[in-house]
């Protein structure tokens, strides 16, 4: 047999109709890991050099593949030697060998007949061909389709060609009626329809046909085109356009300055969300009357693409102006009644009902600015406007702009404008106090109402985005410094209370980076309000690295265990019953500690000074004294120590090294 070839390269390209841009990168990630798993399963060496793709192709290049699997040797056990020659003959015959090919295998149970079966490794091309269809159809997509008919294979869009090459040879298989080969296809307009490719020349051959396979090259091409223009940075849009094109070329367009009268938010939304344009800024950060569109062709020689895009944008802006003018005919304050016909949630009721309930909720939050009340009355009215019907992503923002235009006062307008904030973990909370109360009350109402009708999120399902609402409420309370009584937030709903606590834990651990035991310690010491919890956590974090803190925490854990084991019911300390110096010393140290008026950090520092007294106590004193009254008194001493000094943090929750 000829020596197996090694160090082969494998190219796979799945040619498809246009795949949605936002799905491509994750599909490629999956393809890479699935291919690596497949190689391991097939016992083929090899590594994936890269995966990359465009809307019309997902490509993978692997190298270091062997031409065939290594041979395997398998030991097949037969009858015991004691069974005699007849049995050996039968065993040999059954396996197609002769008796002299058998060997004797010693085992703890005695000697057995056995023989070594050699399994020849199969050719890589054969293995790849057999595994490739499942590899391709196994790529997970958010939503798949059939195209060959009912019950046929499913993929994100129809597969139109497959390139599968192991060095110079086609790896031959079929997927969804498409036979693999060595032919790819270029750009729809500027490339050849059928191109014979090689593993080595793949990227370059496609480049000659106006396809940049590598996303990094497309991104660079867009960035180069943006270089001379002051565009509003927009990484999300850049991603979208990178995966929406095979040969991206930015072009700069303009619009009439007169449209700048419309709010920048509306103009930017039209450009970004509806037209996928970058918007252009002036030196001072204000909007300039220009945009950058990214084409999927190499050039716009006659300016037709630019003028076409400009015309579309003009029509869009005219629509927006029409909506603005129509909406002003009926101010927000006259739309409150209309909210009775807008459903908030089927099982909860209308937005009018939500508004009145949110107003009532506002009263629970303490001293709320008057602007917040007015803003709550009006903040959902923009749902009935033409502008929000067209640009739903601008709800709230449009309400705020309209409130300002309709003379509602700047603080009311700002509170309405920001009342959906924070919309993500990265987003900021509302800037004004009124805005924070409105945003908080709106979210709390949503949470209470949905929990009340049994719509709490389960598992990963959270269609009403209640986790985001709760997270937003927590952030507003913490970052806005609102000392609202935490117990009141859930209005007696135990499930909601736990849901909110879970968000609090998540926030302090994952967002603020507190250790989980610090969060547990601070929360176990009670939760009056979130700004207070924040201050306690910051104090714990500051004092934790000091020498006495963790040893003292370890002692507190020991105290907790002792009290639990003793099932101590509680009684006051009787100083006269203290016998040993060490217990009297601890009592003195405890009672002489003055924490009133101290900051949490100072208080914790003070508490940490108890460490020598506590250590000495455990060193010298036997808690389980034979005399019951003395024992009870010692337990009372420890119990008092724990209760008195666990109000900032329950030290016994701290995990010590």
């Amino acid at each position: 047999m000829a020596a197996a070839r090694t160090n082969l390269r494998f190219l796979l390209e799945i040619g498809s109709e246009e795949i949605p841009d936002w799905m491509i990168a994750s599909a490629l990630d999956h393809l890479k890991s699935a291919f690596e798993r497949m190689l391991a399963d097939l016992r083929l060496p090899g590594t994936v050099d890269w995966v990359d793709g465009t809307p019309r192709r997902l490509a993978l290049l692997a190298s270091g593949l062997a031409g065939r699997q290594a041979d395997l040797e398998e030991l097949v056990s037969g009858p015991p030697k004691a069974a005699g020659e007849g049995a050996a003959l039968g065993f040999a015959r059954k396996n197609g060998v002769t008796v002299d090919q058998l060997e004797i295998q010693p085992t703890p149970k005695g000697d057995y007949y056995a023989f070594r079966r050699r399994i020849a490794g199969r050719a890589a091309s054969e293995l790849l061909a057999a595994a490739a269809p499942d590899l391709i159809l196994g790529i997970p997509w958010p939503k798949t389709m059939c195209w060959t008919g009912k019950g046929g294979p499913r993929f994100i869009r129809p597969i139109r060609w497959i390139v599968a090459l192991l060095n110079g040879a086609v790896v031959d298989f079929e997927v969804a009626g498409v036979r693999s080969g060595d032919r790819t296809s270029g750009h729809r307009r500027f490339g050849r329809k059928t191109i014979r490719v090689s593993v080595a020349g793949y990227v370059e051959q496609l480049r000659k046909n106006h396809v940049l396979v590598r996303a990094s090259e497309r991104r660079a091409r867009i960035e180069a085109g943006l270089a001379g223009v002051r565009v509003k940075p927009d990484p999300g849009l850049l991603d979208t356009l990178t995966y929406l094109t095979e040969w991206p070329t930015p072009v700069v367009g303009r619009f009439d300055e007169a449209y700048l009268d419309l709010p920048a938010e509306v103009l930017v939304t039209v450009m970004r969300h509806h037209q996928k344009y970058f918007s252009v800024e002036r030196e001072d950060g204000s909007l300039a009357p220009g945009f950058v569109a990214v084409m999927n062709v190499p050039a716009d020689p006659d300016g037709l693409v630019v003028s076409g895009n400009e015309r579309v944008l003009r029509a869009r802006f005219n629509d927006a102006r029409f909506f603005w003018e129509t909406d002003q005919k009926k101010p927000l304050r006259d739309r409150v009644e209309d909210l009775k016909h807008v459903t908030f949630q089927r099982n909860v009721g209308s937005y009018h009902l939500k508004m009145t309930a949110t107003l009532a909720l506002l009263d629970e939050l303490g001293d709320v600015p008057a602007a917040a009340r007015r803003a709550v009355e009006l903040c959902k009215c923009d749902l009935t406007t033409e502008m929000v019907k067209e640009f739903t992503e601008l709800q709230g923002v449009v309400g705020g702009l309209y409130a300002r235009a309709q003379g509602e006062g700047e603080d009311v307008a700002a509170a309405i404008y920001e009342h959906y904030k924070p919309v993500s973990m990265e987003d900021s909370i509302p800037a004004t106090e009124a805005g924070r109360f409105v945003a908080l009350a709106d979210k709390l109402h949503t949470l209470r109402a949905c929990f009340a009708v049994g719509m709490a999120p389960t598992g990963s399902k959270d269609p009403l985005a209640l986790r985001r609402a709760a997270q937003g409420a927590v952030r507003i309370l913490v970052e806005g410094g609102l000392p609202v009584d935490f117990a009141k937030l859930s209005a007696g709903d135990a499930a909601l209370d736990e849901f909110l606590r879970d968000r609090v834990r998540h926030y302090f651990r994952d967002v603020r980076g507190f250790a989980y035991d610090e969060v547990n310690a601070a929360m176990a010491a009670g939760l009056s309000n979130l700004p207070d919890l924040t201050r306690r956590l910051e104090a714990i974090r500051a004092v934790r690295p000091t020498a006495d803190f963790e040893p003292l925490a370890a002692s507190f854990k020991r105290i907790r265990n002792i009290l639990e084991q003793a099932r101590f019911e509680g009684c006051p300390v009787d100083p006269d019953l203290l016998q040993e110096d060490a217990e009297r010393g601890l009592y003195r140290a405890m009672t002489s500690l003055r924490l009133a008026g101290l900051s949490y950090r100072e208080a914790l520092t003070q508490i940490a000074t108890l460490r020598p007294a506590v250590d000495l106590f455990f060193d010298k004193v036997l808690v389980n004294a034979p005399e019951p009254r003395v024992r009870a008194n010692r337990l009372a001493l420890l119990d008092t120590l724990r209760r008195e000094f666990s109000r900032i943090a329950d030290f016994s929750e701290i995990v010590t090294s």
Partner: protein
Amino acid sequence: MDSFQTLIFKLKKYWSDRGCILQEPYDVEVGAGTMCPETFLRVLGPDPYRVAYVQPSRRPADGRYGENPNRLYKHQQLQVILKPAPADVIDQYLGSLEAIGIDLSRHDIKFEEDNWESPTLGAWGIGWQVMLDGLEITQFTYFQQCGGIDLELIPAELTYGLERIAAFLQGKESIYEVEWAPGFSYADVRFADERQFSVYNFEMADIATLWQLFELNEREAQRLIDSFASYPEKSRFPVLPAYDHVLKCSHLFNLLDSRGAISVTERVGVIGRVRKLAVGTAQLWVAQRQAREAA
């Protein structure tokens, strides 16, 4: 520069040359060409079909009294159904753009994800909106399900927005300025239509009457659907007339909606009533086809 009607001629010729039957518009009000029996019912079952037709599509809520340059109560769609979709369907589609004078080497075409769904018809598909220099000119859909039934052959549906394409080709800022035929603008032909129907749809349509009409049509459609099982000779059963009543219901629902007579809460319920009829009719169509096969 081609007039509106020449544009239509060219597209019809193009698809006729590719084996499509040229149908005329359906004579019951519809919100989209998809709703015509030539699409909604023909995509069901195992029979290949290719058809193209212009369908005036009425969307009462989109009316703007003829005042908005880009929005219409009634617009014209060129609807193409290729069942099953050929492997080169996108190339054929791009060829149709070249055929109406769009030189694709001088313009920018993108296929952007847009999955079509019609809750009223119990139908959905996977596809794109086709963007030409930033303008959506076509909805391209591979139907997956219609009337709640998984499709046996997967058709491609191409829906061209004719007014937009004409305005683009003629370089007009307003649809009303489009030349329909030499010497006649779109406004000459359709302005009165847009204005009067906007007045009726938004201001004068009598809500009680519309509800009555809705219920009458609903009852008649349901009565027919219910009588199929016991009807002796299935092949002559009036499935198509039943479907006409479903279309009437759908249009009356749109009218009531534009009149502001349906609250968001009620909406889901009314859509469900229409869907029940659409699903019922689709099932009859399939059952009738099977009965014919068996006979």
